[in-house]
C-alpha cells in the first residue's frame, strides 16, 4: 500500500486499462497536448500518442456522440468532459443515445462507454459550479459512479472501462488533491456496491463524493462526545445498493443523507423515500437530508461558503436528530 492522490489513482487506472486493452482510447478537450485540464491525463499523450489520446474541438455533443458511436463500432472509449457543467450540451447524446441504444434496438447493440467528468466549485459562479448527479441517476440504462476516495476512484474506474454498459463517472475537482491508501498491484472494485466507511451504532449518515469527507469529519468530531455515526458511502448512484443502508438503519434507527446538489428531487429524496418505504418500522424519526442552498451559485467567497453544509452544521443536525 502507498499513499496516492485521487488524481494519480485515476491516471493509474486509465494507464493500466490502456495497456491492458488496445481498444481503450481517450477523447476530450485538452486531454492530449495540455495533459488534461485537471492533469488527469498528464504525460499520457507522450506515452500513448495521438491515435489513443484524441484532442477534440469544443463540441460536447460530438464528443459524447462520437464516443457512443466508437463504442458501437468495437472500441472502449473514455470521453472526458472538462467539467460536468458542459454535460448539458451533450445531454441528448447521453439521455437518448448512450442510455437507450441497448434497450431500444432490442439488445442488439452494446455501448461500452465511460464519460469521465468532474463536479466542483471554487468561486466559479453560477454556470461553473454544478453537480447534476441526480439528473443522470434518473436514467435507466446508465450506470452512475461517484467515488469519494482514491482507492475507490481507481478500482471503480477500471471496472467502468471494462463494463459493457455506458457509465457516467463523476469525479470532484476538490477531491483530486486528496490522498489515500491505494494498493500498488492490480485490483478492481465492483460498480453498484455501497461501502461502510465508518461503523457506528447511533445514527446512519449516507453520503458520497466530497460530502463523504464532510460526513467523516463530523463523525470524528461527534465521536469525542461518545456519539457513534455509521457513515455509508453510496459510491454508485445507479444502480443503488441499499443493503448496507438498510442494515445500518436497523441498528441506528436514524438516517441523515448528505449531498452537494440541491436537495429538491435529489439523491437524498430518493434515499429517504426508499428507507421510509422499505424500512419504516426501523425508523425512530424522519430521514433527514442536507444539501446545497436552493439558489444559483454566487461568486462572492463569503456567500459561496454559505452554500453547502459543513462539518459543524452536520454535527448540529446529528445532535438535533438524537435529542
Amino acid at each position, binding site marked *: 500500500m502507498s499513499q496516492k492522490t485521487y488524481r494519480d489513482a485515476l491516471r493509474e487506472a486509465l494507464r493500466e486499462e490502456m495497456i491492458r486493452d488496445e*481498444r481503450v*482510447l481517450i477523447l476530450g478537450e485538452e486531454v492530449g497536448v495540455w495533459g488534461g485540464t485537471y492533469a488527469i491525463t498528464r504525460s499520457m499523450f507522450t506515452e500513448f500518442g495521438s*491515435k489513443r489520446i*484524441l484532442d*477534440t*474541438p469544443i*463540441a460536447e*455533443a*460530438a464528443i*459524447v*456522440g*462520437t*464516443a*457512443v*458511436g*466508437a*463504442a*458501437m*463500432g*468495437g*472500441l472502449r*472509449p473514455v470521453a472526458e468532459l472538462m467539467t460536468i457543467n458542459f454535460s448539458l450540451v451533450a445531454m*441528448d*447524446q447521453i439521455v*437518448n*443515445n448512450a442510455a437507450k*441504444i*441497448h*434497450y*431500444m*434496438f*432490442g*439488445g*442488439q*447493440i*452494446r455501448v*461500452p462507454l465511460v464519460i469521465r467528468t468532474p463536479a466542483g466549485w471554487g468561486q466559479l459562479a453560477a454556470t461553473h459550479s454544478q453537480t447534476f448527479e441526480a439528473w443522470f441517476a434518473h436514467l*435507466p*440504462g446508465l*450506470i452512475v459512479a461517484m467515488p469519494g476516495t482514491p482507492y475507490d476512484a481507481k478500482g471503480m474506474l477500471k*471496472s467502468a472501462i*471494462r*463494463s*459493457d*454498459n455506458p457509465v457516467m463517472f463523476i469525479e470532484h475537482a476538490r477531491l483530486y488533491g486528496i490522498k489515500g491508501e491505494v494498493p500498488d498491484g492490480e485490483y478492481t472494485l*465492483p*460498480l*453498484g456496491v455501497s461501502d461502510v466507511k465508518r461503523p457506528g451504532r447511533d445514527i446512519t449518515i449516507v453520503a458520497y463524493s466530497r460530502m463523504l469527507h464532510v460526513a467523516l469529519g463530523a463523525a470524528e468530531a461527534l465521536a469525542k462526545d461518545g456519539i457513534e455515526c455509521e457513515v455509508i458511502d453510496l459510491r454508485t448512484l445507479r*444502480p443503488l445498493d441499499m443493503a448496507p443502508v438498510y442494515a445500518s438503519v436497523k441498528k441506528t434507527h436514524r438516517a441523515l443523507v448528505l449531498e452537494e446538489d440541491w436537495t429538491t428531487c435529489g439523491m437524498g429524496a430518493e434515499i429517504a423515500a426508499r428507507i421510509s418505504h422499505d424500512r419504516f418500522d426501523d425508523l425512530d424519526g424522519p430521514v433527514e437530508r442536507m444539501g446545497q442552498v436552493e439558489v444559483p451559485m454566487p461568486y462572492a467567497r463569503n456567500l459561496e461558503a454559505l452554500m453547502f453544509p459543513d462539518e459543524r452544521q452536520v454535527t448540529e443536525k446529528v445532535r438535533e436528530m438524537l435529542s
Partner: protein
Amino acid sequence: MTVTKAEALDWLRKMSLIRRFEERAEEAYGQGKIGGFLHLYIGEEAIAVGAMAALRPDDDVLTHYRDHGYVLARGIDPKRVMAELYGKATGLSKGKGGSMHMADAKHHLWGGYAIVGGHIPLATGMALANQYLDLPRIVACFFGEGATNIGTFYAGLNMAAVWKLPLVAIVENNRYGMGTAFERVSAVSAVYQKACVFNIPAVQIDGNDVLAVRDAVRDMAERSRAGGGPQLIEAMTYRFRGHSMGDPQRYRSKEEVEAAKARDPILLWRRSILENRLATEAELQAIADEADAEADAAVRFAEESPAPGPAELCRDVLIPEQESDVPEDLS
C-alpha cells in the same frame, strides 16, 4: 447504361417492395394496428436503393427515423420489418423500437434515430472505430435536409473532417421539414454548399434517379474508403405522403404534389429499363406482383406474430456486469 439487367431489375424490385410495403403499413395504421409515428418513404425509394447498391454489405449504416426503406433496400426480411411496426416479438428490435428505430446489427444497420441530427456524431464515432481498427469499412449516414441546421450536424461533421474519417453523409432533401419549406428556415438552402465549412467534397444529385444515386454513392464511398475523409451528397427528392400520419398538408398545394409525382422514381426507372430494352413489360409486371406478394406476406407474418411477453419489458436495460468485457473478434 452502365448497369446489368440483373442490377436493373433488382433495384426495381426493391423500390417496388418499399412502395408496396409502405402502402400496406399505411393501411394497417388506418386500422389501428400500427401506432405512434409512421414516416413513409414513398417517393424517396431511389435513394435507399441506389445507396445500398453502392455500399458493401459490411459498410456501416445509420439513418434517421424515416427508415423502413433503408432496411428493406439492404435486403432485410420485410416480415421482420413489418413485425416491428406492429410491435411484435418477431420484429427487428423485438417490438421495442417501432417504426423509427429499425436496426439489424448483424447486417451493419446500426439503427434509425428520431432526434433530428442526433445520430450524426454516432456516425463520426463509428467511422473513428473503423479507422482506429484499420477496417476497410466506411460509414453511410442518412438524414433529412432539416438536420443541417442543428448543432450536431456541424459538430459531428467537423470532427469527422478533422480526423479524415471514412464517412459519407447522404442528405435527403425532400424540401420540407414537417410543414416548413427548407428555404424559409435555412440561410443556405442548397445543402451541398454547407460542406464548405468542413472543407469536404460534396455533390448535389437527382435523388429520384436510382442510377445517379448509385453512381454518386459509389464514387464518394470509394473516395472516402481510400482515405479521402468525409464526403457529402445532397440527393434532391420529394415526399409524396404527409410527414407522418395525419398530416393535413396545408403547407403545399395538391398541384405541387401531383407535379412531383411525374418524377416518381419507380416510374422513371421502369421507363428507363424499357427504353434500354433491359426487360419486357411482362417481366416488369411480374416484379410488381412479386412486391405485392412479399408485402402481403409481411403483413400476414406481423399479424400472426406474438406480442412481446411481459418479461421483455425489463430486459436489455443494463448488461449484467459479469457478461461485460468479453473479448470480441475485432475483425
